[in-house]
């Protein structure tokens, strides 16, 4: 029992006017310091009749979590049996913690002695005695410990009220998960509040009976007015078993068909890996398989993921059906088909104008006439081929669009992926031009760099992978310098064509990227979690917050514990569904470097990277 060193500092710092304020402190400090006992009391039991307090005692945190109140009359053997049952079902050490007294006026002598007698029947250290005057606001609370025969000491108590239903249903989201903590480890070691949440969540067995049940023991807890249940939820649970089985077998059939040998052959598998529609369909199939799997979710995170997937699929299908009804109403598809061919024609015409401009003196630059004409005529012929192809396809466009529009019933994401694929197919000629221009430019750059080395008298050593000096013959140097000069002076023309077609290609890639971004958003947004955060904020808890209730000197401190909900950004971050994998693989720096050296860029990595 050492004298607290703070006493000395307090005495030296206190001016005489505030001595009365410090008197309370001094009285407190002269007692041996012991940890303040925290009693968590459910708000639903605040107006219950007198009885025994049942709950869990956590000695490390010096906190007592009260779970229920057992009312008089009771038989001690039956109470002990019930507690043993609950302990076995929940793996949580439930015991009788003390007595609860709620009466009209001051408790009578006989009741007081009866309550003290109970402490002998249910031995527990420390023994809590909570007392409240009915209609009054202030409580009295004592906690006694028996230290040796006859001696007992009292602890200071802080009362913390908590809403049992909210704490039971909520899920704590710790700010950081330690890397060495296993999933499912006992969370009591990490913090006092996590222990409280864990205790309440595990003690469902205690809350199963309500006051209409004819059990041997009468309890008061959050469900004592009537157990919460919903007919719809029960029916859904019963029906989900066979429905899931049926749908899971259907889905396995579909995936078996999809994995059959025909689709593994070269052309179809290549097409399947390139088209984003197939990717999206595969992704959705995975989702559906997750939803309809007959395995129950093991932990809350898996349950949330299932629910989020269901919400995402439902939203997708709903938006898709909306799009379908909009498309098929008032013959919009016909209008769309009618405008599609002229638009393709217009794009081809614009490209032809662009090439004519390049073949002249673009932006005042002087091009090499011969190379310019060759490249320009080559690309013009390509465009001519493309236009003929489009005109060949024109009678069938409306039918194709109608069938493509039907695919929107599978989901908006499928329709958008199809749109992205159609854009890719319609701008295939731009892609071809880009590849030609890039290959030509790259060839030129390679040639230039190699001949530049020759010009300086160096050589690339492929074995050692470095640049070595080398002595060339005179005719080698002559030819090399000549070629170098030719390539150098032809560089602006090639570079200009490359630049123009790369910009066009980047434009198309940007449009496709936007569509993919939208698809990704619909795929990965956790709608169920966001809805839960909006409507039932106590279910997703970032922590707790305390409010100090009305306080009177001499009475124990009373606090109200409320759930602090998770902010929306953290909800999205924690419960995001994994996306389709359409993220850009290269950083901006490496992209610029590849563009400069003429290498082909694939802004998002496909599952099987094409080596060209």
């Amino acid at each position, binding site marked *: 029992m050492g004298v607290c060193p703070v006493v000395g500092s307090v005495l030296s710092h206190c001016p005489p006017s505030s001595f009365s304020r410090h008197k309370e*402190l001094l009285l407190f400090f002269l007692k041996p*310091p012991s940890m303040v006992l*925290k009693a968590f009391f459910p708000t639903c039991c605040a107006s219950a009749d007198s009885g025994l307090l049942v709950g869990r005692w956590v000695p490390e945190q010096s906190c007592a979590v009260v779970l229920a109140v057992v009312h008089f009359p009771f038989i001690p053997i039956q109470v002990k049996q019930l507690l043993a049952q609950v302990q076995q079902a929940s793996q949580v050490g439930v015991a009788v913690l003390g007595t609860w007294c709620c009466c009209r006026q001051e408790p009578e002598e006989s009741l007081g002695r009866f309550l003290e007698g109970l402490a002998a029947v249910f031995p527990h250290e420390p023994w809590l005695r909570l007392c409240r005057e009915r209609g009054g606001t202030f409580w009295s609370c004592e906690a006694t410990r028996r230290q040796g025969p006859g001696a007992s000491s009292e602890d200071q108590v*802080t009362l913390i009220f908590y809403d049992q239903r909210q704490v039971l249903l909520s899920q704590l989201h710790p700010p950081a998960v330690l890397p060495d903590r296993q999933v499912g480890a006992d969370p009591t070691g990490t913090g006092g509040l996590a222990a409280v949440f864990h205790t309440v969540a595990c003690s469902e067995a205690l809350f199963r009976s309500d006051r209409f049940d004819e059990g041997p023991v009468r309890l008061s807890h959050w469900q004592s007015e009537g157990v919460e249940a919903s007919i719809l939820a029960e029916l859904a649970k019963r029906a989900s078993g066979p429905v899931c089985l049926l749908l899971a077998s259907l889905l396995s059939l579909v995936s078996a068909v999809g994995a059959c040998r025909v689709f593994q052959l070269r052309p179809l598998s290549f097409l399947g890996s390139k088209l984003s529609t197939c990717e999206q369909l595969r992704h959705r199939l995975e989702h559906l398989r997750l939803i309809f799997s007959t395995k129950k979710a093991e932990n809350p995170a898996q349950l949330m993921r299932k629910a989020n997937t269901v919400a995402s699929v439902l939203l997708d299908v709903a938006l898709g059906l909306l799009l379908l009804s909009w498309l098929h109403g008032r013959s919009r598809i016909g209008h769309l088909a009618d405008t599609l061919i002229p638009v393709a024609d217009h794009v081809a015409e614009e490209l032809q104008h662009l090439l004519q401009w390049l073949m002249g003196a673009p932006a005042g630059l002087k091009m090499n006439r011969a190379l310019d004409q060759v490249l320009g005529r080559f690309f013009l012929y390509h465009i001519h081929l493309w236009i003929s192809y489009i005109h060949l396809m024109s009678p069938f466009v409306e039918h194709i669009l109608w069938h493509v529009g039907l695919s929107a019933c599978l989901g908006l994401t499928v329709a958008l992926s199809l749109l992205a694929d159609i854009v890719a197919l319609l701008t295939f000629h731009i892609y071809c031009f880009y590849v030609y221009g890039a290959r030509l430019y790259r060839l030129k750059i390679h040639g230039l760099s190699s001949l530049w080395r020759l010009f300086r008298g160096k050589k690339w050593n492929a074995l050692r992978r470095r640049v070595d000096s080398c002595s060339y013959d005179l005719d080698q140097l002559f030819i090399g310098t000549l070629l170098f000069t030719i390539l150098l002076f032809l560089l602006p023309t090639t570079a200009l064509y490359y630049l123009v077609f790369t910009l066009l290609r980047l434009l198309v890639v940007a449009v496709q990227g936007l569509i993919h971004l939208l698809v990704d958003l619909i795929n990965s947004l956790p709608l169920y979690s966001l809805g839960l955060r909006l409507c039932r904020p106590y279910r997703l808890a970032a922590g707790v917050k*305390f409010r*100090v209730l009305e306080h009177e000197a001499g009475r124990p401190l009373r*606090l109200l514990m409320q759930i602090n909900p998770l902010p929306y950004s953290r909800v999205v971050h924690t419960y995001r569904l994994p996306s389709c994998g359409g993220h850009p693989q290269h950083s901006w720096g490496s992209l610029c470097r590849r563009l400069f050296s003429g290498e082909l860029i694939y802004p998002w990595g496909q599952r099987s990277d094409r080596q060209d």
Partner: protein
Amino acid sequence: MEDERSFSDICGGRLALQRRYYSPSCREFCLSCPQLSLRSLTAVTCTVWLAAYGLFSLCENSMILSAAIFITLVGLLGYLHFVKIDQETLLIIDSLGIQMTSSYASGKESTTFIEMGKVKDIVINEAIYMQKVIYYLCILLKDPVEPHGISQVVPVFQSAKPRLDCLIEVYRSCQEILAQQKATSTNP
């Protein structure tokens, strides 16, 4: 037990510190920031509307004026709800933890609670803020892996930014409670 004193923040604005001692183990400090001044609000509104009127006289499109009104309203609501903090409260409860609450001008409250098991100490730290050197009160959190390390520094009263005299008051009171806490944790 309550008392109120007035201090000033680092820019010279008036702050009011309200201290409530609920019990020897529970104390609350409430700092009230200066209110939104009518002068700055009028200045910003006039600037936005003058700019909108200038654009309108160039483009002759009345949508610009309605857009300016909309932007002003939305901006004001967003400022009151997300930026302007009216009051910052520090509640320290022995053997439970430390709670920091910020109340915004629109009534929104954002609370953070740190359990006492995670708190290592409360200190006054110096920092370089723009062209000034200021003092701020912060909570040091324990590192679960290393017993003598610090995992995080959580500053308190970030938007009120009181001066050193106010911080010393709060610091002394908090240290009294933390000393109790340390004494009980060493004597089981």
